[in-house]
């Protein structure tokens, strides 16, 4: 054992490595991404790791490896799980041979996601067991437990984390390399009765799963990370608190000033540790459930109270005593608990309520495309080319969703990965006089857009596809993908060409343009929009975070007429107003040159990149 200062996601990765994981596959998505990245960085030589092109593929790659007896981890964020649902639902019926942990990071808030869906619910729906750590240390240990349970019960299991566990840091105890487990896969053994799903097999499997989950619920009642605390010596003998995951740390922090209260910490939300919960509820009059996203623990406790006829009132989200959406905080939990216990919260803030009321209006900072981001130029070119026309700009998931911000205002819709293509087609079929565009990034193109393009061609839609190719997966922290030609094993491989894919599908108009060449970009868009059928433009220019820039532009105040067109039209964070003049913040400017091409008097200059 030694100590390391690790992020929760890094701890999960190190835990998987310590458990002898043989294969890790996933798709990037905040807040899950660092798990796979850390495995890639710290893996023993014989561990295989890949960014798959999407979560469904990752799940299938994982399933295949688990069939051989390999220990497998598959990583994704909560909405990624939706993409992987199809293989996972069936895989639960087939089962696995090697241990398989499906790491899903949920995002209460949501901070970086489209939905506040709760993987604990998904676990119930899919019947998979679910583990949920509260701290970084626990995440490290729990992933190892999860592998053991997965093998013991021959089922994939969820490890559900949330943003604050995944992205929290702590100094924790980790194993030395000598203590790692080594798992040698037996290999795939042919057996069609086992690996081929048929209705008859599914019926039998369903019977087994239901029986197994009853057994697991009993097993989990003695799982040491499910805790029943303060049964004796509570200062509020008739009251109890039930919690789980990161919220456990909020509760235990609050109890430091409020005193001991009987507490149930649920680390396996499914199957629920029923026997332990009965012990918790017995003798209590009132219970409050502190959890994030859905009232999962709360519903279980209500069910158990009913089943065992326990006279206890359960408070939580369903009774509107705890907020039923968004993230909890130490303050909100302190508020919930003080109200529930009928005590006063401690007060020690520097600002009084009167001070708070006097607070000046704070700057609003929606996230924006970086200064120099090539997406800004692409959006601006399409906007100018289509000025005055009836248009639909269907956006997608990635940095380019931020193209919705003023003044660009170039994202009319955004739903989920790859949806822009379908949406553009749907609008086109009902409104043929609207010029429909779908914007999709390079990584999203590979992950989710190709079937949409084929659909458009086959079903005779009129639309223009704009691929924003910045040679990386920018939003989640710059992961490689099939178009970059690098793998997570460190290999350099042939790049998959977006242009060739589109031509192969049968598109006749496929043009690749540098969006920083403003005139040419506008002309290309005009040309494409005028043609019938499915057309594609690939705007190719790298994300500024993956290339080095050493030049920046400046405004020549002799020439500048202070018309503010540059600021009004493109909203680049490097263009700022100081002492009533437009200046360029040289710490941000990358010299992309977009502003210099739209300034009516040529006042912006310096060395700009060609």
């Amino acid at each position, binding site marked *: 054992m030694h*100590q390391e*200062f690790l992020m929760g996601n890094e701890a999960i990765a190190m835990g998987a490595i310590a458990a002898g994981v043989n294969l890790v596959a996933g798709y990037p998505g*905040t*807040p899950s991404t660092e798990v796979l990245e850390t495995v890639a960085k710290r893996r023993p030589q014989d561990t295989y790791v890949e960014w798959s092109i999407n979560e469904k593929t990752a799940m299938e790659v994982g399933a295949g490896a688990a069939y051989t007896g390999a220990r497998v981890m598959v990583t994704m964020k909560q909405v990624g799980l939706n993409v992987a649902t199809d293989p996972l639902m069936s895989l639960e019926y087939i089962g696995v041979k090697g241990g398989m942990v499906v790491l899903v990071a949920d995002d209460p808030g949501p*901070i*970086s996601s489209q939905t506040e869906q709760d993987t604990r619910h998904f676990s119930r729906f899919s019947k998979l067991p679910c583990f949920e750590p509260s*701290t*970084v240390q626990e995440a490290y240990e729990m992933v190892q437990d999860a592998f053991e349970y997965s093998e013991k019960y021959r089922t994939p299991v969820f490890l559900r984390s949330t943003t*604050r566990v995944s*992205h*929290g*840091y*702590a*100094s924790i105890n980790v194993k030395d390399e000598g203590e790692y487990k080594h798992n040698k896969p037996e290999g795939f053994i042919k057996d069609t009765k086992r690996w081929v799903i048929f209705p008859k097999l599914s019926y039998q499997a369903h019977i087994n799963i239901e029986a197994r989950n009853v057994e697991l619920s009993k097993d989990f009642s003695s799982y040491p990370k499910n805790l029943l605390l303060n049964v004796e010596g509570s200062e509020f003998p008739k009251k109890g608190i039930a919690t789980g995951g990161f919220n456990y*740390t*909020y509760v*235990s*922090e609050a109890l*430091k000033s409020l005193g001991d209260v009987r507490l149930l910490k649920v680390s396996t939300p499914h199957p629920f540790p029923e026997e332990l919960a009965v012990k918790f509820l017995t003798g209590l009059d009132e219970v409050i459930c502190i959890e994030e996203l859905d009232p999962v623990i709360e519903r279980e406790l209500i069910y158990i109270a009913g089943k065992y006829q326990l006279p206890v009132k359960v408070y939580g989200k369903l009774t509107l005593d705890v907020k039923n959406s968004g993230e909890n*905080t*130490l*303050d909100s939990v*302190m508020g919930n608990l003080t109200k529930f216990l009928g005590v006063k919260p401690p*007060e*020690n*803030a*520097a*600002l009084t309520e009167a*001070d*708070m009321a*006097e*607070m*000046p209006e*704070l*700057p*609003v*900072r*929606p*996230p*924006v*495309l*970086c200064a120099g981001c090539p997406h800004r130029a692409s959006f601006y070119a399409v906007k100018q080319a289509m000025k005055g026309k009836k248009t639909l700009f269907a956006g997608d998931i990635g*940095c380019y969703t*931020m193209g919705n*911000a*003023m*003044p660009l205002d170039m994202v009319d819709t955004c739903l989920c990965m790859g949806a822009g293509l379908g949406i553009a087609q749907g609008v086109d079929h009902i409104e043929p006089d609207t010029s429909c565009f779908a914007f999709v990034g390079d990584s999203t193109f590979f992950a989710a857009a190709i079937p949409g393009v084929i659909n458009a061609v086959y079903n005779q839609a009129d639309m223009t596809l704009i691929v924003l190719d910045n040679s990386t997966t920018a*939003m989640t922290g710059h992961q490689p993908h099939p178009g970059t030609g690098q793998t997570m094993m460190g290999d350099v491989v042939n790049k998959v060409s977006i242009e060739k894919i589109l031509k192969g599908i049968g598109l006749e108009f496929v043009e690749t343009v540098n969006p920083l060449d403003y005139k040419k970009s506008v002309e290309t868009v005009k040309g494409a929009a005028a043609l019938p059928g499915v057309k594609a433009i690939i705007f190719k220019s790298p994300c500024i975070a993956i290339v080095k820039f050493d030049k920046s532009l400046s405004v020549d105040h002799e020439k500048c007429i202070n018309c*503010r067109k540059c*600021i*009004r039209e493109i*909203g*680049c*964070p490097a*263009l*700022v*107003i100081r002492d*009533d003049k437009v200046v360029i913040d040289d*710490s941000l400017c990358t010299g992309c040159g977009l502003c210099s091409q739209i300034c009516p008097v040529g006042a912006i200059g310096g060395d700009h990149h060609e």
Partner: protein
Amino acid sequence: MSKNIVLCGVGGQGTILASKLISGAAMNKGIPVKSAETIGMAQRGGSVFSHLRLGDDVDCPMIASGSADIIIGFEPGETVRMLPYLKKGGQVIVSSRPVMPVTAALAGSNYNGSEMLDYIRNKVEKVIVIDTEKACKELGSAKIVNLLLLGAAVNSGALGLDDEDIRKVIRTKIPERFHELNFKALEYAKKCSH
């Protein structure tokens, strides 16, 4: 010892490195550290924070309002946003250089942070304002805002870490060619701490 520290600023300003240096310095002294920070979309020019908690008796990496011993603010407006976390008698270190949000530039606003600094000075007793723009010019690098604020924080005594603790972690965590510049920034910060 137990210390609650909030670092805040605008995505891209380097709050994360400062937070890494503090946690590294604390761990070198055997003090357990827990922390939480903004990762994700807000890193693109949004408001970002790090919460850092040093000490034994810590369960949660997040800080409750009214319990921060010190706020290290990389931007005046963002510092005000975090002030509710400050406890009575807590310390504020703040860079005077404003970062204008794109929304403000569009609206033609003249946001320059002075209103924010006035509010902080009014409401908080222990405040150190660092003119990081001037300091960066004098020291010839724009990349030391981190170290300037950190230096002032150490000097205020509110971190419970001393100058040598920080120097030690710089020597191990930052490439050697930057050491001299970083040490200069720490010295410079000492001068403006009063």
